[in-house]
């Protein structure tokens, strides 16, 4: 499977996305804008998992841990008065740090991919237990009461603040554009990374780690780097989430949340990053729809969806559709993308 390069088409997509992000708030009612914002935040989370899983083959069952840690970090710092952009950055760093520690233990200990999946799941469970047990009012960091299962509330929303400049408050439209913009930037950077030398080595690690090592590459720091980056993006998404709802609670560490992230990438397709976005949007929309028509079938459908995709559509939607599009008469070059 020959990796293609970045085609001109992709730049066109990015441009179209920028236009969409800037323009949609002007077309849609305010509620839809608010709703789409949280969808985009989840797309960012899905992309973060795809960075680790799709690019480097590192399946993590606990990306919710990095997401949640980012959210809590943002909440704690923002409630304590730190400027919200800095708090958001700190959320990303917190996610990256946790991922880095786990990655160090896993990759430098040379343990298997299954162990990584188990370990990330275990850590998420531990975090759920620990954060859930902070119900007593004495659990606080500075002015931020951790709040146990109630979580932290009244978290300041993100505002554009820089030293020596006046703070610009972000309304729903502004926040939407910010989140959309961040998503585009992350996807673009991810795609550039895929075809950069580092990304190509990640691809070989994904395909055959032993052979890559025999070629002389140190796989450990590379896996650690991408895993930490993935955790950082997840943490960033967590911070945005806390800002969106002005609250964060231990549910971000739940098994349900972890499963959701995996389902998004599974459905959408691994490796392309666009698949993660599509998968997150589709599954979120489906969940919303199922809930709105008043059925209890949401979890049931999601579960079956997972099974069906693993059995039948293992690559996910976007790669499969791309592969099938080869049969369309006006496609002339049958090259398959990674």
């Amino acid at each position, binding site marked *: 499977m020959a990796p293609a390069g970045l085609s001109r088409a992709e730049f066109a997509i990015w441009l179209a996305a920028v236009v969409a992000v800037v323009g949609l708030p002007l077309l849609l009612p305010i509620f839809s804008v608010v709703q789409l914002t949280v969808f985009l935040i989840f797309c960012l989370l899905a992309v973060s998992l795809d960075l680790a899983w799709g690019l480097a083959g590192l399946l993590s069952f606990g990306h919710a841990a990095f997401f949640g840690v980012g959210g809590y970090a943002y909440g704690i710092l923002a409630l304590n008065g730190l400027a919200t952009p800095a708090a958001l950055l700190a959320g990303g760093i917190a996610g990256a740090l946790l991922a880095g520690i786990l990655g160090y233990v896993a990759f430098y200990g040379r343990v298997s991919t299954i162990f990584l999946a188990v370990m990330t799941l275990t850590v998420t469970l531990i975090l759920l237990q620990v954060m859930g047990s902070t119900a007593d009012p004495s659990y606080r960091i500075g002015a931020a009461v951790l709040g146990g299962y109630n979580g932290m*509330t009244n978290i300041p929303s993100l505002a554009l603040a820089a030293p020596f400049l006046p703070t610009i408050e972000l309304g729903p439209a502004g926040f939407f554009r910010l989140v959309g913009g961040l998503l585009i930037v992350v996807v673009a950077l991810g795609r550039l990374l895929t075809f950069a030398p580092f990304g190509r080595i990640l691809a070989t690690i994904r395909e055959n780690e032993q052979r890559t090592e025999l070629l002389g590459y140190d796989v450990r720091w590379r896996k650690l780097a991408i895993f930490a980056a993935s955790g950082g993006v997840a943490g960033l998404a967590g911070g945005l989430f806390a800002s969106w709802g002005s609250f964060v*609670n231990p549910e971000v560490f739940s098994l349900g949340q972890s499963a959701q992230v995996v389902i998004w990438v599974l459905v959408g397709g691994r490796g392309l990053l666009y698949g993660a976005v*599509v998968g997150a949007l589709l599954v979120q*929309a489906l969940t919303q729809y199922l809930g*709105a028509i008043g059925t209890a079938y*949401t979890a049931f459908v999601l579960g079956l969806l997972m099974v069906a995709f693993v059995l039948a559509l293992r690559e996910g939607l976007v790669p499969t559709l791309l592969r099938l599009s080869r049969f369309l008469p006006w496609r002339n070059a049958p090259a398959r993308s990674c």
Partner: protein
Amino acid sequence: MSILRREMMQGLLGTGMIAAGTMLLGRDGLSADEIPVGSILDATGPINIYGLPMIDATRFAVDHINATGGVLGRKLRLIQTDCQSNNQIYAQNAVKLILEDKVAVLMGGITSASREAVRPMVDKYGALYFYNEQYEGGVCDKLVFCTGVTPAQQLGVLIPWAKKKYGKKVYTLAADYNYGHISADWVKVYLKEAGGELLGEEFIPLDVVNFDSVIQRLQTAKPDVVMSLLVGGNHIAFYRQFAAAGLKGRMAIVSATFGLGNEQVVLRPEEAQGLIVIYPYFQELDNPVNKEWVAAWHKRFGANYPYITDSACTVWNGWHIWAAAVDKAGSLDSKAVIAALESGIAFDSPEGHITLDPKSHHVVHSAHLAKVNDKHGFDILESFSNIAPVDTMKVCDLIANPNQHKQYTPKF
């Protein structure tokens, strides 16, 4: 190739977003005269054991208000949403009801976590919100009214009574989350006032089903009374294991949470009989308002409805208090309605006569002590009225300091 791929990508991305968008856009039109009102509760998911009676009560209350003339001469149009026991969906539905449906009032939330997910949205977009469920007290928010019973209103009566009847040595078992912790703190306050002695307190995570170590420690401590603040399906196991270990005769159990999830229906009489609880409302209450209410409820929802819970009555209270305030204010504008609510509203509820305390935005409740009987129900022992929500009143005065949007946690 490149053009098609771009088009395909765009198509996919666009379809995804549009699909997502269209799910959310578009509501059927509002009949000109109707007032939209919103409800966010759980019809599905684990919390629905509390949610389903509350949803029924919501429907029942709104229909009753409409049948007796509506509000300001107009009918209410109820928009009920199911939050699937998911706090993020609570937040999303709250935003939808406030921004898109433009409801006159938002009612709902069951767990405190769900309320705290909704409150920032309410504050952000300036909507009126009623939280109609038992909780740990302390919410002090100009836009929020909490009609449920709070620890002071239950424990303040229960603890002195239990000490007199059973003895002064108490051991607390509380669910390990906010409600459990804060209630346990109040247990200590009231126990001290009553001259009792706390032998120990434990916080049990909500997903624990194995109470062996707890039962061992209880046997070591030998209290007169076990104060149970356990919550949820998993904690039912405690009562079962307690009975299996033969402790039923040796220690009394009193609780401020038993019964909310119909534990008395699930457990066998040998396991639950004799347990003491206290709530503002029981289906068995013997007053004319309740007799009529229960009859109407059974007529509407069936005579073999499992049990009409305290939460259902709280919901009924909430809707009627709001309706009364709107009529008093003569307008739907939230500021005017809040002013009317703060002028003092009284209501004849199936639980007894209740009033809304203006300063704390909480309700002054009746309290009834009851014992679990051998027919999966309760026998009322004693009744008290006008029990004020002192835990919140002590710290919250929204008339003197109106600009507050927080939840106080008690400092002891």
